[in-house]
């Protein structure tokens, strides 16, 4: 999987490494900004109220 991505990145090894770092940061950003905030309320740490549900 990662080998496949690496082979399809353009440029020499340095450029590929740079693109890989940027891609990784982009994935982490999307996770922290969108995916985790969505997933987190599904976990049980969040209920601090009493309610009828």
């Amino acid at each position, binding site marked *: 999987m990662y080998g496949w991505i690496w082979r399809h990145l353009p440029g020499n090894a340095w450029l590929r490494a740079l693109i890989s770092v940027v891609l990784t940061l982009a994935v982490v950003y999307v996770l922290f900004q969108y995916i985790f905030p969505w997933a987190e309320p599904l976990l049980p740490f969040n209920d*601090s*109220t*009493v309610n009828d549900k």
Partner: protein
Amino acid sequence: MSVRVIVRTVSELCITLGTLLVLFVVYVLFWTGVKADTAMAHQVALLQDQWAKQPVSPTSTPGSSAAPEPPTPYKDGKPFALMYIPRLGFTWNKPVLEGTKTATLKKGLGHYANTTQLGQKGNFAVAGHRRTYGDPFKDLPKLRPGDAVVLTDGADWFTYVIDKGPYRTLPADVQVIDPVPRKSGFTRAGRYLTLTTCDPEWGHSHRLIVWGHLESTQPVEAGKPEALRR
């Protein structure tokens, strides 16, 4: 497809999944706290702006309790008060927002919309996270009878004193925030305070409840109440 490719791909997926889980733990334990601190600081700033704008009105002269007008309802999701609990730390103070929606509780403590307003007759009930989002009520079980919980809405200071708690109950036990809360030991109508959070610390199977009553109020011009002086 060779066995080598399959083994390699499966291993890579496992490593990816592991990294994902570690990142998620970092998010829950650390990043929600960073976000909540920013959000709460913003809410406090909103409140202070709002209070700076409102005129210092020498309204109700002491002694004349003639027809106090009904208080304006709080706006959903907006901050209206600051809470101080000296037992949780001298610098412990959090904004209190109207409503207990998930998004609201990320920005501060949440006032149960169906309960009474600050200082009014009935039960002023507030919920807060035990863990994650800045851990506002992490140390709620440390509260003991006699501890002060001080709130201000910009015009007055309200000093509540804890009477009972921590009391552990089930999530569906809504009677703990009734005007005269069940199990609180209060028997007559009064001006009460209820704080709720989850229990155990990282779980959601139970709720932890603390009750208090209104001890005193004073206008902000009179300075900080006794409990906040050092």
